């Protein structure tokens, strides 16, 4: 029994090796197919990574419900300090940070690159600002009354809750995620069609050989097997190529991404190409290669009969 099994797997291994040889023997045609498969598999993976990272950016802001309290320009830094002190005593407020007008200007000059234009202004147009972070226990209703109360204070010009754009980003990301799913399905379908077509051409060009094999007593299954292996190899090697494409893209993007995370004080960790996505690409390649080959062999091999 074990002997038979080993023999059976031996035959399959031989099929797999022969199929791979086949691929190498037609380097140009194979490479074109593999390149197209690689791109088709890398694209949804890359989009997916993009969306995932966008999500982790959005999530990192999700817990933050800070208020920016812009004080009136007439307010002195000392008054701002006093106000901050009084706010800190409240149970619903966790921290209060003062950003002085000077600090705000410096920060703005550094990040915006408008330093020259601003310095010609002479005076600082920015007010002092308090960044108020409520405790986690404070619920939405409490936050609304807090915001209203703050804005009615004498020194306060305007209160802004900084979470609107996070919600918007979230909505956009949801849309993107669905688009990626659709694109993924379409591109996988494309891979199946490409492999199916390549195998179909392969079958047609080997029609005579298939007829001879059938005359010698080969079953449809026997004739099919090498073509299925070729399909699987196309999918797997295409997947590997896709992974290489992603790695190269990641290297090109590494520097700008680092700058971006630096800007946000690395509140979140960017995800690179992890094992899950590598596994997903290879599995996608394997399955779509196999299915593509299967559609071709199931339609074309049974119909080839010797005359």
């Amino acid at each position, binding site marked *: 029994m074990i002997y038979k099994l080993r023999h059976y797997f031996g035959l399959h291994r031989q099929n797999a090796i022969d199929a791979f040889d086949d691929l190498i023997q037609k380097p140009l045609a194979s490479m074109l197919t593999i390149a197209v498969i690689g791109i088709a598999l890398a694209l949804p993976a890359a989009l997916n990574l993009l969306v995932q990272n966008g999500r982790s950016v959005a999530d990192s802001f999700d817990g933050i419900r800070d208020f920016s309290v812009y004080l009136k320009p007439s307010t002195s830094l000392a008054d701002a300090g006093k106000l901050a002190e009084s706010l800190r005593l409240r149970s619903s407020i966790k921290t209060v940070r003062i950003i002085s007008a000077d600090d705000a200007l410096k920060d703005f000059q550094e990040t915006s690159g408008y330093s020259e234009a601003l310095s010609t202004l002479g005076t600082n147009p920015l007010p002092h600002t308090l960044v108020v972070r409520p405790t986690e226990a404070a619920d939405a209703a409490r936050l609304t009354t807090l915001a209203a109360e703050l804005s009615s204070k004498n020194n306060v010009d305007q209160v802004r809750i900084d979470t609107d754009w996070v919600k918007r980003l979230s909505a956009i990301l949801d849309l993107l995620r669905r688009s990626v799913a659709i694109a993924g399905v379409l591109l996988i379908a494309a891979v199946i069609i490409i492999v199916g077509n390549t195998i179909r051409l392969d079958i047609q060009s080997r029609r005579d050989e298939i007829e001879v094999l059938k*005359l*010698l*007593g080969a079953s449809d299954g026997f004739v099919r097997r090498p073509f299925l292996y070729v399909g699987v190899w196309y999918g797997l090697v295409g997947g590997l190529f896709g992974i290489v494409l992603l790695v190269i893209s990641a290297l090109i993007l590494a520097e700008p991404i680092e700058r971006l995370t630096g800007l946000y004080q690395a509140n979140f960790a960017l995800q690179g190409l992890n094992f899950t996505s590598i596994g997903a690409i290879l599995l996608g390649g394997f399955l779509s290669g196999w299915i593509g080959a299967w559609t071709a062999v199931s339609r074309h091999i049974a119909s080839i*009969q*010797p005359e």
Partner: protein
Amino acid sequence: MIRFDHMTKRYEGGRDALRNISFEVPKGELVFLTGPSGAGKSTLLKLLACIERPTRGQVFVNDRNIGRLPNRQIPRYRQQIGLVFQDNKLLQDRSAFDNVALPLIITGMHQREVGRRVRAALDQVGLLKKEKSAPRTLSLGEQQRVGIARAVVSRPGLLVADEPTGNLDPELSLDIMRLFKRFNDIGVTMVIATHDLNLLNQLGGKRLVLKDGEIDEHTLPEFKR
């Protein structure tokens, strides 16, 4: 071994290629199938190889009604017979060895046993030294001998050959026919279609003459049940 029973074969949209044929070939026989072009020789051999099916009547091989064989069982049946073709039908991208090995690989035979059997078959047709050659690099006679080695390597009880010497000159033809005779001597039943009457006179064996889709009455008594 072989029995045709009131068998008629009509191709789509044609007249009868074979009409109401009945004959029997005992085991171990050597039968030469002759007759003018278009008489139905190839058609008869295709019925034996399960490439065509009878329109009416039956074809039995080893008491199996192969005219009614389910498609699924055809490969299994073909593994039990040997086929030789006029144009040898070797696979050009494989060596002589690999060509002869095909029927054994198809049956899933173990690799070591395959090697042993292939070399034995190549030895029998005198081509052991050419096992690595591509068919293209062999002479026509040698290619046909590789084709014969491929047909006998799985030790079939029945060998069917359609004009196996059709592409060869008389001397080579005699060579090939003697080779067939040797396999017949060890008990293989053979049906060989050929035009070459001169050749037959040197060989013996029984002769079945087809004319216009029917068996020539003079040759029939030998094949009566």
